[in-house]
């Protein structure tokens, strides 16, 4: 009897220990978010007097409204609203183009092999490992030649080029698992290069497209370096504006505004992950479609 009871208790204790540890670690991990969110709803006086972790005395949206509409980023004081739009206008075409081109690249490199295609893929892959900083100067020069310096189009171009290495890698490895015979069958059915791509290959690419979209959206939205280097003034993305907002202090530092702006800046990526996160994991583990 006693032995049986012991046996059933021991695993439960172990379970309890595991859960307690996990909850503690998760809580620790979430503290910054907690602080950021709570601070954004506090008044300046509340922040100065209170504890970092305490709940606001009064919940106010003051910081949020100011961050969105009237906070100063450098010389202008229109909040981050305009930059939010900038980022959106820049991110959408950059993500769409880099994903589509990556899909096309992957399609060619895995299903329409040619002499030297493996080498080309290797070189493209190499692009994933080039640090951002290395390409800043040559890229600035190139954008200047193209007449795209300090424009949204220029920033889109940079992100598309830099994103291609990753998107190509994703799609190429995904398409690698597609049976070559499907392509042969489609060719015999009379379909050409793009017909096969649009009608057969792309419809099969759901999981990997989810992965690529999330990956690219997160990377491009969160990018600061390219944004700060290749854009100026009114074209700057959200991340740069956030930096400017935090660094522009006229008198007292308004932590609630800074925090609200930070959450606003992070919101789109959080949203994307919340909506499509499960597809991300599924896409990464999916491997392939059976033929």
């Amino acid at each position: 009897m006693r032995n049986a009871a012991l046996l059933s208790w021991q695993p439960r204790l172990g379970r309890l220990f595991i859960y307690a540890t996990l909850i503690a670690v998760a809580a620790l991990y979430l503290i910054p978010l907690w602080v950021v969110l709570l601070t954004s709803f506090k008044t300046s006086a509340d922040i100065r007097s209170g504890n970092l972790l305490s709940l606001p005395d009064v919940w106010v949206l003051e910081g949020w409204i100011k961050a969105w509409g009237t906070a100063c980023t450098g010389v202008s004081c229109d909040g981050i609203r305009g930059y939010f739009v900038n980022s959106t206008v820049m991110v959408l075409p950059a993500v769409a183009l880099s994903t589509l081109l990556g899909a096309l690249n992957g399609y060619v490199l895995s299903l329409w092999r040619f002499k030297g295609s493996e080498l080309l893929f290797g070189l493209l892959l190499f692009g994933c490992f080039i640090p951002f900083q290395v390409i800043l100067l040559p890229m600035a020069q190139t954008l200047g030649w193209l007449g795209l310096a300090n424009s949204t189009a220029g920033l889109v171009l940079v992100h598309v080029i830099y994103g291609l290495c990753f998107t190509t890698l994703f799609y190429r490895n995904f398409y690698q698992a597609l049976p070559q015979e499907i392509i042969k069958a489609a060719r015999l059915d009379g379909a050409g290069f793009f017909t096969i791509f649009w009608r057969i290959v792309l419809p099969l690419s759901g999981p990997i497209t989810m992965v690529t979209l999330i990956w690219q959206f997160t990377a491009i939205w969160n990018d600061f370096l390219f944004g700060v280097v290749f854009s100026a003034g009114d074209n700057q993305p959200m991340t740069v504006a956030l930096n400017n907002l935090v660094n522009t202090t006229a008198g007292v530092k308004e932590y609630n505004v800074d925090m609200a702006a930070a959450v606003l800046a992070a919101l789109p990526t959080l949203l994307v992950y919340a909506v499509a996160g499960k597809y991300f994991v599924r896409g990464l583990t999916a491997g392939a479609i059976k033929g």
Partner: protein
Amino acid sequence: MTSLSICNVGKQYQKGATTLENINLEIRSGEFLILVGPSGCGKSTLMNMIAGLESVSSGQILLNQQDITHAAPSQRDIAMVFQSYALYPNMNVYDNIAFGLQIRKWPKDEIDAEVQRVAKLLQIDHLLKRKPAQLSGGQQQRVAMGRALARRPKVYLFDEPLSNLDAKLRVEMRTEVKKLHQRLGTTIVYVTHDQIEAMTLADRIAVMKDGVIQQLGTPQEIYQQPNNLFVASFIGSPAMNFIPVTVQHTAQGRFVELKDQSGTCLQLALPAGLAVKTDQQLVLGLRPEAFSEVQPHKLSQAQVQQGEFLVEMTEPTGPDTLTLLRINGAEVTARVAPQANPQAGAKLPLMLDASQALFFDPVSGERLRALAQPAAA
């Protein structure tokens, strides 16, 4: 009507490896031609070249006297059924069959009629809404054939279409393919490595090895008069027995001896006109059915004789018991009726019918043919 000519076609890869050499084939309209050979013999390469999926290094391919050697696959009007079926996973059965017609810009109602016709023909009309992943292997196979049939192409290519099916279904589908061919009278080139498939389906078989056609002929020709040791060993199951023999000479003529371990010795007269010398080493080829239980009514026939052989092992297959003997040191399989009750280790009286005996040159592997009889014929 449609005929396909393959003239001196060759395929060389860049690294100097020659995959196919001077292939010549004439496929008649409505003919069922099978390319058979071990893996790596170039049969699939040849098929891909006919389809236009691989480039042709030399020679010509003509379809109805029209040169299609370098035409794009879509311009050839050739359909192909693949080993993996290669159905489009994102489309349902209907769209899989309709795809080629849509690409060719058929009117919608004609596409619909054609898909229905093909689906009825193959008994898949109740599956049209399903995706390929929801079909069994046999159903996928039918859809793949349906896709090929729908376009009514000039030539059908089948690339090992049955090898992914389990044994029972394979036999069923084999029959179905043959029925379909008889009903539609289509021109079919069919690749397989399965010699039984080749024998049962083909009007003519081309046996390939190392990129060269070893023999082209009807199944019966290939079975009874193989050109060389390779063809003889590849076609037929269980395989043909090869027995080393030495030509001997007496006043009656030339003969060879078959010696069993137990001391039995049969003498086999060589066919007249066989260009061999006394003491020459030959390989005697005898199908397993050349050895059988003694059937007294046949003993009177020419070239039939009997003797007692020591049985090494038996393999009952049901209708026959394959009985392993040892003759001139070589393992020999005999096809014996189970009623004769062959027992391992015991002696068994057997009948040898040498009327289908073949002789091969042991060095070149070529079959030695009897020269034309002077006057008798």
